[in-house]
């Protein structure tokens, strides 16, 4: 029997036959989950008043510009961000003008936190036995992951908007709704350039015919639609198209607290000048290898496989690219959580990935380096090695095997050997 492609209706729900209706749903579980969601909100509430350096340097001036000048501000290059996040700020300033600035700039990302949690729940629900609480647990783990909580509620960054788009892409891909999935991906890309790390996988799957290629045309359409309001407000099209290019040339550091390969090099100007171009090529190499692996995969991709590929993409490409920020592994944090709920025996993957993100946030947020960045890079490299190894061994054409005894789907490839 061949494994059906993801998105097809008859994909087996793993574990369903063996654990269906097993765990009784009861009021304790429901009450506990509701309280935990309330606590997740409370956690964000107590952190929201914090004002980071980024808040003073970027977010606050942008918001004030939007609030004082109205929509016409979009004709100018008052912000380095792509417009969609700024539109959200505009909506808040327009319809809720009394909102405190520190709340206003964080609300979009906080709402995206909720959306991400919902999508995580939906994704894991597709793959879990009925009436199990794994989907709810996955959403809770996301909501309480330290790097997730810090990123939006504390720091005021917008990476969860990107993650929401990516999870939307993942969910609708699994459901076989490829048109919606491509739009979600376009939205992710419109919020943050880092969504591009997934492009090699998408291209490979489309070229291979695992997913239809036509929906991918909506990605540029979404990007154009995202800049259209700014263009109408009077900003030159060339400038709008160049926002991401401008972002890429903004800072001249080989790594900005990211646990990437370049944390192993000195952070000097000399090193930057010598290795920047090599780094870009290395990043392209990583993307190319990922493309080849996705393209030559002999088995039709399953949900688990797709999540594994996306996770490796969001780890490997920023790992080898220069100029990465500490939070550029945010999509990897989120996908690692999803991954662990699909492969429970690999629970240590999100622990390591989220842990590395948390400790690499420290130099910027807390102005100290608890664990040296080169060590964090080492951890990430080990994780990457394990993931690639697992990915390749999961790809091997093997017959379907029963669940292993310890955990469901634990290292199916190993069980065969």
């Amino acid at each position, binding site marked *: 029997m061949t494994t059906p492609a993801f998105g097809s209706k008859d994909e087996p729900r793993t574990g369903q036959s063996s654990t269906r209706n097993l765990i009784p749903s009861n009021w304790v579980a429901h009450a*506990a989950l509701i309280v935990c969601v309330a606590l997740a909100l409370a*956690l964000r509430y*107590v952190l929201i008043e914090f004002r980071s350096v980024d808040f003073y340097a970027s977010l606050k001036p942008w918001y004030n510009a939007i609030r004082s000048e109205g929509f016409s501000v979009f004709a100018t290059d008052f912000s380095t961000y792509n417009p969609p996040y700024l539109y959200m700020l505009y909506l808040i300033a327009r319809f809720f003008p009394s909102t405190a600035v520190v709340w206003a700039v964080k609300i979009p990302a906080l709402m995206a936190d909720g959306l991400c949690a919902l999508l995580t729940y939906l994704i894991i629900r597709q793959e879990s036995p009925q009436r199990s*609480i794994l989907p709810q647990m996955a959403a*809770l783990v996301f909501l309480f992951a330290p790097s997730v909580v810090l990123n939006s509620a504390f720091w005021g960054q917008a990476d969860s908007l990107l993650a929401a788009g990516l999870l939307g892409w993942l969910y609708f891909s699994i459901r076989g709704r490829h048109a919606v999935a491509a739009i979600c991906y376009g939205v992710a890309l419109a919020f943050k350039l880092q969504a591009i790390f997934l492009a090699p996988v998408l291209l490979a799957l489309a070229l291979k015919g695992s997913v239809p290629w036509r929906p991918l045309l909506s990605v540029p359409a979404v990007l154009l639609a995202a800049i259209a309001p700014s263009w109408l407000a009077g900003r030159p099209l060339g400038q709008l198209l160049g926002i991401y290019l401008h972002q890429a040339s903004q800072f001249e550091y080989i790594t900005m607290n990211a646990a990437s390969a370049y944390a192993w090099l000195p952070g000097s100007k000399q090193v930057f000048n010598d290795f920047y171009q090599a780094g870009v090529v290395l990043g392209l190499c990583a993307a190319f290898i990922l493309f080849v692996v996705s393209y030559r995969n002999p088995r039709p991709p399953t949900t688990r496989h797709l999540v594994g590929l996306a996770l490796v993409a969001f780890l490997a490409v920023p790992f080898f690219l220069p100029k990465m920020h500490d939070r550029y592994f945010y999509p990897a944090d989120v996908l690692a959580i999803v991954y662990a709920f699909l492969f429970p025996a690999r629970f240590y993957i999100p622990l390591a990935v989220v842990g590395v993100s948390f400790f690499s946030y420290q130099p910027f947020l807390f102005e100290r380096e608890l*664990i040296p960045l080169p060590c964090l890079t080492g951890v990430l490299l080990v994780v990457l090695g394990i993931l690639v190894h697992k990915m390749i061994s999961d790809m091997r054409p093997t017959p379907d095997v029963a669940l292993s005894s310890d955990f*469901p789907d634990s290292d199916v490839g190993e069980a065969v050997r």
Partner: protein
Amino acid sequence: VKRRLPSWQTVLDALIPVLGIALALAVRYTLLDFKSVDYFSYTKPWYLTLKSSGFAGFGADFSNYNLPYLYVLYVVIRLLPDAAPWVAIKLPSIAADFLAAWFAFRIVRLQRPHSSAALLAAFGILFAPTVILNSAYWGQADSIYACALLGCLYFLLRRQDFPAMLLLGIAFAFKAQAVFLAPFILGLLLRGELRWRSTLVIPAVYLLALVPALAAGRPLLDLLLIYPAQANQYERLTLHAPSALAWIPDTGRFYPFFYPAGLIAAATGAILLVLGMVRQPGKMSLDLQSRWALAAVVLTPFLLPKMHERYFYVADLMSIVVVFLRPRLLALPVLMLTVSFFAYQPTLFGVEPVPMSILALGVLAVIVILFRDIGAEIWSSALADSNNRAVK
């Protein structure tokens, strides 16, 4: 009938515990003369107050501890009026060390009645570095509530609800940290493995413990506010505890954000722990219950703010008990005791050989190993359960 002399075997069997106890006493004796900063600023003044003013001293607010510990001090003063104060204050804690070892012995005996594991567990506790340091060297009182908590666990494992709750009440009356076990107790209650009405013993014991001080003339409200006052004493995220908040800078800039965040995280952790217990199918084995108890006493102080270095004391003890019930978890006591030992160093010796943030990673490793072990068991028993149903 001619009486047979006991064989060497029998004599040795009897001698081993005696020698072990003698050694445990000897090591404590050698450390008795140390006087810590806490001795000078807390226990010594309390001792002197009680000695000079007698029982009437309980009428005044001279100590930030709850009363039972002070009653014990009072009894020691009455019984041994000539003992040096730094020895007198350590005697109750040292006695509790041995009581804790006794309960560990009984717990392990429940599962392995015919092995020497129980004896080794008792020795494990008596010779654990943090146990020795805490009572005999430092003069802290953690072994008192900890031995009551071990006793509570022992009676819970024997399904004797009232003695268990009585000991829990005593533990809570001695130290508020007994609350770390609360998620485990709540889990048992919701599973129906512990009767709700038995928990009434806990407030009863707590209030009963206040009666002598009331009689001595201290106002009730004053007495009821002892624990809240303790909780408000320091505005610190962590006081040398290897907890998750060791990863956040302990400065005024971050305290207002991460103090409530820690409380919320701890509440969430406790709720999820209770949920895990409730969802565990089938009857819980003895060692599984012990593991859940250990999980509660590690996870709660790991997430709570304002923890002291010694708040993992019960976790130290329970990790020793658990390893004798489930030897594959050897890493737990090794990690836990090492971490606790190094966490004591800043306070006791004024040095920090291992940074607190690294020690916190050690506690995190304990939590991960423990929950991985429990989680695998939940899953495999769920599968076994479904297979049984399928057969029927």
